């Protein structure tokens, strides 16, 4: 039988990275994100008896962290990032009214694509572009990809329709791709 401390130690090693990345995305402050992660594990240690084996530790820890994040926003009197819906607009940045790419935004080849993910410079630009996304688009992208949440869950959590969700994913990916394209020099 493992002691509570041993279990928490194991969880700290396994989940600190992903919890911290999420807390940072929400708060945009390094020190605050670190505090929130610490508080999460403190609560986890105190209430470890309530943890049921059948739920995954990751889900459980994220539940605690999200409560902490909500408390933080409430105390600060800050609202979480506004949800920015996408408005269909005559003047589309990416597409002509016919729905075809504008010549200025049509994707072309990237070089050395297979090695990009290991390139620190590429990851820097990725972060830069992620932070530049409007409203909560970045959060929704990370909920989908980094946390691996299904679209249904994200729609419930953000109270958006499925159509709206796909518009946001679509626009967010288009915007990210374009931003990386414009900032990346091979």
């Amino acid at each position: 039988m493992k002691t509570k401390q041993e279990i928490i130690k194991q969880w700290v090693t396994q989940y600190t990275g992903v919890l911290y990345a999420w807390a940072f995305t929400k708060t945009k402050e390094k020190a605050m994100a670190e505090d929130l992660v610490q508080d999460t594990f403190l609560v986890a240690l105190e209430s470890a008896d309530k943890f049921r084996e059948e739920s995954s530790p990751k889900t459980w820890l994220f539940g605690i962290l999200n409560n902490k994040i909500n408390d933080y926003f409430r105390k600060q009197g800050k609202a979480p990032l506004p949800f920015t819906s996408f408005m269909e607009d005559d003047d589309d940045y990416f597409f002509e009214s016919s729905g075809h790419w504008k010549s200025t935004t049509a994707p072309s080849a990237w070089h050395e694509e297979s090695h990009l993910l290991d390139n620190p410079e590429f990851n820097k630009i990725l972060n830069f572009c992620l932070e530049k996304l409007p409203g909560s688009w970045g959060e929704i992208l990370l909920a989908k990809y980094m946390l691996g949440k299904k679209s249904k869950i994200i729609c419930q959590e953000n109270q958006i329709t499925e159509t709206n969700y796909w518009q946001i994913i679509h626009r967010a990916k288009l915007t990210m791709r374009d931003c990386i394209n414009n900032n990346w020099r091979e």
Partner: protein
Amino acid sequence: MNCKQATLLIEKREEEKIGLFALVKLRYHLTICKACSFYREQSRLLSQALSKKADQIPSQELAELEKRVLKKVLDNKP
């Protein structure tokens, strides 16, 4: 099918099944549209990069963060 519709379908297809008719139209569009083929490749790459986002914290920095968190959490034990 135009590029706006094609790129939306590319995103949807990553997570869910799309109808056979739509799939055939998408496949055909991708054979004639270079820009959308590049979009598909680069969008997939972005998906991979975003999935790995948590591992991007430099390992040194992460190790120190873990140490600090652990110390605080275990010291706090009454």
